């Protein structure tokens, strides 16, 4: 037993290190030599990782559930008293470890990846700022700090997506991500405001304590949770606000790995898991989440089948996996969701970094149709990519298997149909991932101009570390079925209240696993036949194909539907408002005021001759009159 409170004070160091890194790299942007910014930034993140690990052990050995570190009084206006405080509990620690640990690896990787970029110092500054914001998000002890981190990561994401801002398409992608996030954020801040009006506080502890007393299914709770869900949907790229994430791949690959796979997009998951008490009390919202999550998982997986850009494939798979997490959240299996967040962070970061390594090797080429045969050229990347692919497909004993299986099992507990759909999505995932894998690494090299080569050590070492994590990450939570003790779930249980669910027979469980594994094996073989044996290469983008294929390739026309449903009506409305209301009513009113003023002005102008002495005279006379008035009248 260790007394937690004295040690918890060092928690402020965790976000402080990246902040310092950001300050150094941004202020000394022009002074730093080539690699210095990267080294500083990586060191800072690594330092905060070390601090987090330390905190982890402290928390574990203390036996306490949570601790709050209040730094200073932040907002104090009327009733609203919000301290700037950090909440350290198991949930936030898990997130901190993911952010700082994977963040550190990605920072190190970026030293190699961004080596030749001229704005490398800005890059690291922004990455550090992102890490800082993300840490604020997960460490904040109330919704306001969470919101600040929320907005901070959104802003950094915007900056980093548009990092190569000279390309207008990238700029557009950045703007799109920003705007879509804003839609979600609107819901989110409304939710926070509702929270405040309901509970007169935004602090987690107080809100949850008060919420526990409320009736389950109370309308106000449903409203709040729905509004918060809107925020989560925006941030975590669920239907219908998911289209920004594939476009966000415009940013540098480490950014995609860190922000758009491992950390930021899971912020929504984190937020809902954090508010699990509220969600437990709002069954309607949970059902909405199940539907949303499952739809997202399946639809985006289908879309992923037809993508040819290596990063786009990964992006859709991310969205799909996020859908699984939402499914888990909706099922009330919060710890399962967070567990999937963790394993997903490992293997998806690994996938992105591997993709980055490949892109690096191919000289910037991202089209998988032009790759191929990289197996021998890039052995380390090949190996690590294989591990990651197996992990995401859910092959035991890789980490993805455990987390995905957990979610599937939970789904089966609720309804076999859910299980079936979820499994279908997982199979599709498996197929397109192996499609990607085979196209990239097997066959012949299809682009003759590139000279692929293994990446430098600064890039491969993070890959290896991550692959180890992807390989063994699942053992954190070995289910009882395999003789484990569900360590992760128990660990998180202290911070997150999961819904009670029905027991499931272990034989059924084993059966389910066997079914899914055999299906997966078939899918892998299928993919092997298609892409290795037959060496099928996907058709070019413009090639005629079936309707479904076209629909899939066009992402179910979601962007177009958005345009038709939202953009055009708004455009018409604004057009109407501009042409009739503004020009005719408002402008003429304003102009009338202006004309009146100028008429009056031309009358008064004779006094306004710009002669200061005259003004002074007038002023003195006025004061005189005033005093005389007061005194004698």
């Amino acid at each position, binding site marked *: 037993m260790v007394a937690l409170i004295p040690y918890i004070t060092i928690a402020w160091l965790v976000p402080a290190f990246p902040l310092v890194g950001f300050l150094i790299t941004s202020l000394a942007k022009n002074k730093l030599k080539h690699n210095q910014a990267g080294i500083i930034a990586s060191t800072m993140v690594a330092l905060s990782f070390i601090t987090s690990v330390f905190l982890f052990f402290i928390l574990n050995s203390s036996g306490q559930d949570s601790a709050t570190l209040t730094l200073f009084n932040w907002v104090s206006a009327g009733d609203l008293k919000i301290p700037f405080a950090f909440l350290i509990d198991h949930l936030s620690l898990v997130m901190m470890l993911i952010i700082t640990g994977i963040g550190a690896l990605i920072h190190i990787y970026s030293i190699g990846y961004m080596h030749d970029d001229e704005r490398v110092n800005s890059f690291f500054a922004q990455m550090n700022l992102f890490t800082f914001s993300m840490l604020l998000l997960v460490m904040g002890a109330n919704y306001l700090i969470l919101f600040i981190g929320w907005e901070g990561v959104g802003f950094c994401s915007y900056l980093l997506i548009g990092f190569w801002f000279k390309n207008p398409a990238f700029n557009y992608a950045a703007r799109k991500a920003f705007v879509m996030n804003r839609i979600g954020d609107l819901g989110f801040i409304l939710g926070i405001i509702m929270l405040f009006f309901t509970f007169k506080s935004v602090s987690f502890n107080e809100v949850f304590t008060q919420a526990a007393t409320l009736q389950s299914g109370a309308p106000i709770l449903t409203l709040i949770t729905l509004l918060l869900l809107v925020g989560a949907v925006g941030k975590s790229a669920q239907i219908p606000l998911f289209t920004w994430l594939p476009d966000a791949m415009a940013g540098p690959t480490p950014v995609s790995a860190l922000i758009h796979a491992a950390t930021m997009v899971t912020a929504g998951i984190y937020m809902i898991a954090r508010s699990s008490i509220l969600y437990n009390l709002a069954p309607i919202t949970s059902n909405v989440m199940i539907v949303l999550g499952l739809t997202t998982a399946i639809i985006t997986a289908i879309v992923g089948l037809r993508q040819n850009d290596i990063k786009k494939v990964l992006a859709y798979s991310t969205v799909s996996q996020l859908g699984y997490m939402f499914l888990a959240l909706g099922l009330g299996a919060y710890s399962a969701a967070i567990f999937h967040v963790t394993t997903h962070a490992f293997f998806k970061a690994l996938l992105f970094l591997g993709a980055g390594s490949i892109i690096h090797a191919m000289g910037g080429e991202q089209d998988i149709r032009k790759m191929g045969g990289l197996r021998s050229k890039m052995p380390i990347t090949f190996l690590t990519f294989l591990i990651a692919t197996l992990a995401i497909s859910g092959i035991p004993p890789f980490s993805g298997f455990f987390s995905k299986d957990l979610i599937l099992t939970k789904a089966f507990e609720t309804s076999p149909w859910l299980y079936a759909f979820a499994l279908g999505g997982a199979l599709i995932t498996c197929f397109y991932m192996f499609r990607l894998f085979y196209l990239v690494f097997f066959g012949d090299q299809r682009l003759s101009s590139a000279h692929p080569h293994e990446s430098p050590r600064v890039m491969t070492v993070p890959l290896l570390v991550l692959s180890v994590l992807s390989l063994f990450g699942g053992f954190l939570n070995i289910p009882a079925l395999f003789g484990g003790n569900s360590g992760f779930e128990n660990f998180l249980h202290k911070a997150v209240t999961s819904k009670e669910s029905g027991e499931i027979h272990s034989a059924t469980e084993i059966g389910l696993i066997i079914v899914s594994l055999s299906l997966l094996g078939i899918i892998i073989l299928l993919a092997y036949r298609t892409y290795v044996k037959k060496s099928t290469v996907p058709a070019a983008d413009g090639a005629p194909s079936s309707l479904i294929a076209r629909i899939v390739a066009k992402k179910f026309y979601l962007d177009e539907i958005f345009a038709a449903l939202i953009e055009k009506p708004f455009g018409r409305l604004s057009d109407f408002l501009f042409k009739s209301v503004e020009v005719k009513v408002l402008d003429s009113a304003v102009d009338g005021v202006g004309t009146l003023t100028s008429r009056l002005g031309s009358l008064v102008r004779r006094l306004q*001759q*710009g*002669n*200061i*002495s005259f003004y*002074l*005279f007038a002023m*003195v006379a006025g004061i005189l009159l005033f005093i005389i008035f007061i005194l004698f009248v």
Partner: protein
Amino acid sequence: MKELSSAIQLIPLENYIFLSVALFSIGMMGVLFRRNTIAILMCLELMFNSVNLLLTAFSAYHSDPSGQVFVFFIMIVAAAEVAVGLSIVVMMKRNVDSIDINLLNRLKW
């Protein structure tokens, strides 16, 4: 010093009021009278100081230091005002080669 410190008991407060009113009026007259911007600034200082004197007198007669603290603040404001005012004069001299206040009738150079 004893004699000096009890001096206020001998001088009626009215005297200070008369004096500062007179100084204020002189300063005011100067502001209206002169066209030289620097001289006008000086007359403003004069007016400030008459107020200072009055504040100090009241403070002394009330045995309350707040008045003198206000004088302190007025000095601060005066110093800031002079710094900005004089730089405006310098700029004016540069731009129109004169410091006649009547030439300062354009809003923008």
